[in-house]
């Protein structure tokens, strides 16, 4: 899915917050200031104070000199982060992944991939957020783009539209100043000094040159804005891993005890999985023994499931591998891999059976747990003539055959893995054998069909073609024989048996 990100920049975060709390300040220019090396430095400016010419980073005394009626409020460290967290939690309604912009500490970054259609489109989505924040009293600037970096840049420095069309973010960045790349002050000073006032002046330069001049961090920020480097957002509400713990008062060392522990853990986990519509694909049970060692068993399922009884059966097959030693005091059940469960509609009468039948997948899970998944095979037709390659293993239970099973040519019910050489008496050049000797028994051929020539797939392996004959001996037993290669005086040809017909 096309990734889309929104950056919400709170232009006057602290000031807006203060105004909401104390509406009487609306007509008064005010600033926030914090003590720094024995002086007061301005950390945040209100709209009115900004218009009066007061900037962030000034000394409070200087500001007071510029604007006589200026109100100076005390700033507490960590307050913006606290405010942003609150606002971010509120923003969960717009996107599942909301994170605080750690660089500027005055904006929120939202991963809105697949969310906007719920508001009727991207434009309506942006409008909705701006209106909601405005009605609350926060002035915000928004931008939506394919990367967080671009969204962040456009929300602050963009002049035209806040909505950057998919794929258009690099173009939108070109005319923006280097500050839009989330760089630290020293780097920006350096860029400015060299005359790079817009991103387009250096975006096309060779990476090696940029790295030597400005370092790796610069390149990373650039790549994150363009989208060549992926940026991972740390969500405010982290996705909880599927993990359950069970600590025991007494160390457990019996099979029954372990079974009870597994059931309890599974009940808790499956309840949560069911609520979230998920199912377990792999499960790891770790037992912490009292001697400090760990024992572990793992299971896997072929389809996501949250059925306690089924998962328990899978674990039950592996309990023998647990060596409890002096006893296990802590059980941890992890589900590192989960998948969405398709909840089947409850059938009033027996549902149509088939490969996707739940009991069949559960059976295969148990078999895979006992003897390994490599023992289970299912075959689909392959569009090839060479008998050994005319079938291929299916990757999954749901894979459907792309071609039809061919029935136009006779194929034996039992096929030998390796053709067995036989001794044959046959008329030259093209007659089926008169008799053949297989495993010391002579078979008189009564009837025969053939030959069916199957050429070797020369692009895969070298060798002679095969001329197959379907023969029936005088007792009625049917075989599939072939002659490898042409008849000839010098050339060696050989006869083989390759299968048995029903």
């Amino acid at each position, binding site marked *: 899915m096309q990734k889309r990100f929104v950056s919400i920049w709170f232009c006057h975060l602290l000031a807006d917050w203060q105004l909401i709390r104390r509406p009487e300040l609306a007509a008064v220019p005010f600033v926030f200031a914090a003590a720094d090396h024995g002086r007061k430095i301005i950390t945040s400016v209100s709209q009115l104070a900004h218009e009066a010419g007061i900037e962030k980073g000034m000394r409070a005394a200087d500001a007071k000199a510029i604007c006589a009626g200026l109100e100076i409020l005390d700033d507490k460290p960590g307050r913006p982060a606290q405010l942003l967290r609150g606002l971010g939690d509120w923003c969960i309604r717009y996107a599942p992944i909301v994170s605080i912009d750690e660089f500027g500490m005055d904006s929120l970054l939202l991963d809105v991939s697949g969310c906007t259609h719920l508001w009727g489109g991207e434009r309506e989505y942006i409008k909705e957020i701006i209106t909601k924040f405005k009605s609350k009293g926060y002035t915000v600037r928004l931008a939506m783009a394919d990367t967080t970096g671009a969204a962040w840049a456009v929300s602050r420095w963009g002049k035209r539209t806040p909505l950057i069309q998919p794929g258009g973010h690099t173009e939108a960045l070109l005319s923006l100043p280097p500050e839009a790349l989330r760089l630290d002050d020293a780097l920006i000073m350096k860029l400015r000094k060299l005359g790079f006032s817009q991103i387009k002046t250096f975006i096309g330069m060779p990476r090696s040159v940029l790295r030597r001049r400005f370092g790796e961090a610069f390149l990373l920020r650039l790549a994150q804005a363009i989208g060549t480097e992926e940026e991972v957002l740390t969500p405010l509400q982290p996705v909880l891993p599927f993990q359950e713990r069970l600590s025991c008062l007494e160390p457990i060392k019996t099979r029954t005890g372990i079974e009870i522990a597994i059931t309890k853990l599974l009940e808790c986990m499956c309840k949560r999985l069911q609520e979230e519509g998920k199912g377990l694909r792999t499960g790891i049970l770790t037992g912490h023994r009292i001697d400090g060692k760990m024992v572990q068993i793992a299971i896997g399922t072929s389809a996501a499931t949250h059925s306690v009884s089924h998962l328990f059966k899978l674990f039950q097959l592996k309990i023998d591998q647990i060596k409890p030693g002096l006893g296990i005091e802590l059980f941890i059940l992890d589900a590192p891999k989960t998948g969405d469960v398709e909840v089947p509609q409850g059938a009033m009468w027996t549902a*149509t*059976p*088939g*490969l996707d*039948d*739940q*009991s*069949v997948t*559960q*059976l*295969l899970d*148990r*078999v895979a747990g*006992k*003897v390994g998944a490599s*023992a*289970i*095979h*299912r*075959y*689909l*037709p392959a569009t090839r003539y060479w*008998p050994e390659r*005319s*079938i291929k293993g*299916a990757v999954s239970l749901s894979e*459907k*055959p792309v071609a039809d*099973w*061919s*029935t136009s040519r*006779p*194929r*034996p*019910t*039992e*096929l*030998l*893995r390796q053709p067995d050489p036989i001794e044959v008496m046959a008329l030259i050049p093209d007659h089926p054998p008169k008799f053949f000797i297989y495993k010391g028994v002579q078979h*008189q051929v*009564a*009837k*025969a*069909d053939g030959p069916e020539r199957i050429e070797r797939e020369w692009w895969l392996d070298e060798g002679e073609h095969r001329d197959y004959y*379907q*023969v*029936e001996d*005088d*007792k*009625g*037993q*049917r075989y599939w024989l072939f002659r490898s290669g042409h008849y000839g005086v010098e050339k060696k040809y050989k006869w083989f048996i390759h*299968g*048995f*017909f*029903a």
Partner: protein
Amino acid sequence: MPGVMEAKRDLIHRLQQDILQWQGYKTTSASACGKIGLGTIESAFPGGVFPKRAIHEFITVIPEDAAASDGFIAGVLASLMEDGAACVWVSTSRRLFPASLSTFNVAPERIIFIDVNTEREALWITEEALKCEGLAAVVAELNEISLIESRRLQLAVESSGVTGFILRKDGRKTASTVATARWQISPLPSVTEEGMPGLGFPRWQVDLLKVRNGNPGSYVMEWAGDRFEEIEQSRKYETLPEQEGLKFG
């Protein structure tokens, strides 16, 4: 007089049913009934119905017999799997060629092959699979199976309703199982129409060696392209000289 005869027949029929019940034979529910296309062979079974909730044993000593049994089972599977159900095929040394099953109207992609190394694992899987109600049938190639093991399998199919086919390679110890039916399928010379050259439809000698509460018998069957066809014994002998002529001709 006819009224008396009818009453007698009714009485005998009822008595037969009672005896079957006392012998522990459970009549299958209506949904499990139905012909599977075996013709007169089905009448050898109690009630004239091929028992689906049962273990069928096939004695295969030589590979030719194994191939014939595979073909016969595939023909039966075709009607058992008609509703789209899956089948499990357990083996330690499988030679069945999946592509050939389509000639017996079985969709090979609906058969799950489980190839294991030891008999023990094969037995375990067979039992588990027979308990699985979502399957139509389970085919297991087992060399040795004891009385107790066969009882376990029988109990499994009685509760689940899955049909079990067991291909046994040891012909000597056949008496020691509780299978519902014991079969031996061996190939017979095929017959082509009007003495045309080449091979005809696969034809088998089907020996029903043992049937619980039924009548063992011997039949000649042919897989006529898409269904079983029973060959009258007399017709079989009739065609024999023709084959002789072909062989030496």
